[in-house]
């Protein structure tokens, strides 16, 4: 096998894995290929896709963000809280009653702000990304509990619910939104200066700095975008359930990191792609769905998912060592 074929095989690994899984599940379950089930898979991965796009950018710079699940929960809670209860200004005797758009904008701003805070902690205070985002995980979870009192905020109305549970031209809105984000961030990562800098910073941070790239600014951007995308995921979850669950997003960071790694993005940065992450999300989504359809115990589902992640990382490491 020559180098070109090896390279091509490596790039196509996630696609081959997905095709094999889909084929096996088609043979094992008569429900797998139904339109309703396929739509269900796309709906379920749409949230992870939003998180994973941001996570891909972060991991491409050589970082990691453990707080995306918690930011998802907080952004959803902020949007739902403002939409349901408004913002009471008791001194003035008025309430700012947020529209669905206002709630969404507020949620996304919260996500951007939290991501920016992560970026600041990492670039200005030189905290390791693992520690900085672990701290943010705890902060965001605590704030979510404070905001909701530990109870779900429900009844957010059909206008808000439309982005999570509505359809446009027969396609779920959540799928359309995540597909639009994939397209936007594919273009950003491949055809813009920011995208090239992200790969450069992850490939060799020092060399990038010597070449005049403002490494700190790129990292700030990337973490802020990661927070913003986590907030979009939070809005989708909240809209779909018509409720902001204080525990929303618990453990989602693991699925997100898994999707990125399975999609071929290197944990050491500099290598990977948004399209690979899309495949990673599809693999995780199909795996979850398949194990459910085959009536596999949820405990075994976790074991299988863990093994798939280990296999993906091992394959990546093996490939890197050979290169």
């Amino acid at each position: 096998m020559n180098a070109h074929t090896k390279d091509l095989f490596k790039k196509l690994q996630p696609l081959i894995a997905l095709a094999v899984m889909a084929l096996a599940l088609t043979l094992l379950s008569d429900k797998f290929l139904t339109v309703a089930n396929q739509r269900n898979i796309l709906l379920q991965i749409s949230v992870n896709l939003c998180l994973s796009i941001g996570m891909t950018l972060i991991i491409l710079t050589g970082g990691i963000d453990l707080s995306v699940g918690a930011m998802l929960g907080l952004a959803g809670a902020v949007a739902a809280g403002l939409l349901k209860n408004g913002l009471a200004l008791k001194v003035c005797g008025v309430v700012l009653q947020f529209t669905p758009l206002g709630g969404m904008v507020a949620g996304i701003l919260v996500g951007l702000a939290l991501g920016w805070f992560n970026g600041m902690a990492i670039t200005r205070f030189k905290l390791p990304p693992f520690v900085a985002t672990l701290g943010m995980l705890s902060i965001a979870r605590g704030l979510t509990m404070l905001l909701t009192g530990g109870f779900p905020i429900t009844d957010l109305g059909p206008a808000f619910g439309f982005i999570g549970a509505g359809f446009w031209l027969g396609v779920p809105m959540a799928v359309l939104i995540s597909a639009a984000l994939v397209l936007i961030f594919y273009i950003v990562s491949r055809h813009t200066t920011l995208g090239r800098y992200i790969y450069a910073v992850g490939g060799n941070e020092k060399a990038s700095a010597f070449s005049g790239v403002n490494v700190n600014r790129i990292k700030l951007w990337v973490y802020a975008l990661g927070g913003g995308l986590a907030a979009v995921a939070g809005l989708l979850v909240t809209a779909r359930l018509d409720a902001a669950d204080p525990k929303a997003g618990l453990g989602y960071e693991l699925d997100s990191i898994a999707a990125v790694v399975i999609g071929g993005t290197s944990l050491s940065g500099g290598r990977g792609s948004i399209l690979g992450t899309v495949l990673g999300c599809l693999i995780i989504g199909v795996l979850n769905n398949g194990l459910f359809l085959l009536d596999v115990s949820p405990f075994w589902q976790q074991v299988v998912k863990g093994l798939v992640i280990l296999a993906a990382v091992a394959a990546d490491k093996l490939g890197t060592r050979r290169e």
Partner: protein
Amino acid sequence: MRAVRWFIALAILAGLGWRWPLFHVVTLKSATAAKAAATYNPGQFAETFWASHLPATLAQAVPSATLLPLLQSDPAAAKKQFSRSVGVSDSYFYCLSGRGRVVAITDEAVIVAVIDGNSNAVVALQTGLVFGDAVRDGPGWLNASDYPNSQDFNDLSAALNHLVETRVLPPLRAQAKLGATIAFAGCAAVEDEAADLKPLKVIPLQIGTP
């Protein structure tokens, strides 16, 4: 130049905010009143729904003389032809109607031997507390995706079950005398075929005298 750019950006934001406002300012008093009025009441919703959809549901119920013999001879064919399921769930529902003679009465059910057709089948009309989603999901009158808030959807199920407990079960218990003939229509959920089909456990939606 920088100031002009800022001015233009702010002007665009202001325009967008005017066209698609992010919030409205309302008085504290009117906001409190509006919130109280908009609270979802599953009981009231179930009541309206029951009144407007029950007749159509009962009209579409499969005659027990058709369903029960097929269930005995070929459960897979009966499932394919007459059952309804929700999403990718393995459990499924039947809605059926018919007439039968009361052959046994227990604390939880009235056992009825169906007298229509050539069947010797019996059904168990449930008379205990009503659990599960058979009343909500069995007739196919509601679509889960119309209810993005799953808690509302669950509350609706509980409210419909409560209507069955208060409207249908008391007259059934009153009419259920050994040897009496009753007409029934209802829904059955099948989760475990071995346990739920022998006999078919039906949650009654309507009881009458034939």
